[in-house]
């Protein structure tokens, strides 16, 4: 295209024109629905009158005062936090061991860890249900026939079950994140510590762990936000009895048809997550800026 000044205006218009489809898509499928959801949360709803487009704080008041919602949000973040802890405690050593493996094994096990990402979350979660689902679960049946347990292990519809299944689903994100941090560690650094007289435990605690901590924390942010907003796994394992924010919003929208209340729950989840993620990210950046930037 010509770079003459006379055509500058046209160039800018062309640029806008060219990005317009993508921009319209972005506005159309993200910004507008989000804004509408926020507005929806201020509307009124009744069993017989349906949605009334007025501006009231009824839904927000309900969410804020009804202990049911407090318990549900508390449960959502408790599940997310436990899932994050489990993935960190298991995933960080996993990545470390993986990184120390030699060539062929390393690629093989990396594939084993990342492979599940290729399978749908629903399929992976259903796997847990098949193994532990009540009397018919494979593992339960086996253990009961061996006489090791009298009744099925409580897994379905329990918080423990949701946390375990979620941790399994989220593990690759943590391993990848820690793995990336490990790639930046000088391969000779453990030898350096060794030559200075440090034992294996001291090397892990004082040399390796502090260096991969940023990776663990950014992995934790990813896992936490994905777990707190996860739908499929809590829906399948937790079901109707053990609701979290995402499944509750879904139910309000599709079963109760109380869209405004569902919108309030969804918006609250979004805002809380954004605050937590942005806040912890800022904390991490400040803590590690001096050393790693």
């Amino acid at each position, binding site marked *: 295209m010509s770079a003459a000044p006379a055509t500058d205006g046209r160039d800018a218009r062309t640029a806008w024109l060219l990005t317009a489809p993508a921009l319209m898509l972005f506005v159309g499928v993200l910004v507008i629905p989000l804004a509408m959801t926020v507005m929806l949360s201020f509307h009124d709803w009744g069993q017989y009158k349906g949605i009334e487009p007025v501006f009231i704080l009824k839904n927000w008041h309900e969410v804020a005062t009804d202990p049911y919602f407090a318990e549900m949000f508390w449960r959502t973040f408790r599940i997310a936090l436990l899932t994050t802890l489990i993935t960190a405690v298991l995933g960080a050593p996993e990545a470390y061991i993986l990184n120390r493996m030699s060539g062929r094994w390393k690629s093989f096990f990396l594939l084993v860890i990342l492979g599940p990402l290729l399978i749908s979350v629903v399929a992976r979660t259903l796997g847990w249900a098949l193994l532990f689902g009540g009397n018919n679960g494979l593992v339960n049946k086996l253990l009961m026939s061996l006489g090791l347990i009298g009744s099925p292990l409580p897994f379905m519809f329990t918080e423990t079950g949701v946390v375990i299944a979620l941790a399994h689903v989220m593990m690759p994100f943590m391993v990848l994140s820690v793995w990336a941090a490990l790639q930046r560690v000088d391969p000779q650094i453990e*030898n350096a*510590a060794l030559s*200075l*007289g440090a034992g294996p435990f001291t090397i892990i605690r004082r*040399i390796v762990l502090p260096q991969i901590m940023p990776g663990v924390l950014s992995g934790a942010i990813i896992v936490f936000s994905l777990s707190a907003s996860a739908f499929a796994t809590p829906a399948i394992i937790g079901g109707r009895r053990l609701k979290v924010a995402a499944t509750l919003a879904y139910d309000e929208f599709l079963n109760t048809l109380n869209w405004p209340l569902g919108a309030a729950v969804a918006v609250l989840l979004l805002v809380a997550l954004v605050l937590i993620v942005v806040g912890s990210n800022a904390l991490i950046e400040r803590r590690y800026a001096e050393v790693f930037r």
Partner: protein
Amino acid sequence: MSFLELERVAKQFGTQTVVDDFSLTVGKGEFVSFLGPSGCGKTTTLQMIAGFLDPSRGAIRLEGHDLTVVQPAKRGLGIVFQSYALFPHMTAAENVAFGLEMRRVPRSECRERVRATLAMVGLAGYEERYPRRMSGGQQQRVALARALVIRPSVLLLDEPLSNLDAKLREEMQIELRQIQRNLGTTTILVTHDQNEAMSLSDRIVVMSQGRIEQIGTPQETYERPASAFVSQFLGKTNDFAATIDRTATPGRLIAGSWSAPAPAGLAGPVTISIRPERIGFCDAGLAAKIVTRIFQGNHWLFQCESECGAVIVIRQNDGQPQPAEGEAVRLAWRPEDMSLRRAGDAA
């Protein structure tokens, strides 16, 4: 006398022998360099001394005690890595203090030794800096201080200066040598830079393909190279064809228009090796033409095309007029400055 002793040490990776038949004794306080081209097994040898690799054969002894049975963490050696391997999440002082903490040195003594060692390497006032905020030379000094502060019995340096620019490298060489002299720490330096090896070491171990080519003082290895490899690797060397004519008595060694009385032993075609700085421009001798003349400050470098092929000549810049490019010259040298071998023998 022998402080550190390596006896017929060998290392194999699978079927590949990387170091073979490596025997060396290092005296207390000595500064020894391992010099050789890339991939000749210098780092491997150093890592066996450090204990990060186990030798496939042979023995390593420190003060008469077998070192290979000692854990690397218990060997008490100071090591400076090529990449420095500083702990990035610790300040300079914390890096240096790490080895002392591992030895449970009391806090106050530890602080004092860290301060003194950092001051010794010229980093007083940099205690609270993180490695990322230091220049390459400063990081290198922290790594050196970290290795020295534990008062190691042997200091192992793996190409510690190769990441520095030429000027800084020269400064650090002088400083390293001074520190080593003052502390009297037995030191082994790995390098592929012959100038570094020559200016720093008491003795040089020249290595090639996992084997020792020669062990000697810098002067010995330079002036009496044990093999063609050593003479090629240490400094520049001219190799050109000549013949020994035994038909006349006494026999003569003839290279183009240059000739000298033949030494005893050899006959027929031979190869002459001679250092460029030992060749002079004379009235009679090997006929040559100067192709290029390069001024290098304290000396001139001449690339000549002679009757016997390309020859490099180095002359001190002592103020005398030097021949110009394209000029025809005669090259001559003293027979005792050259070395002879049968033509076709390993170069």
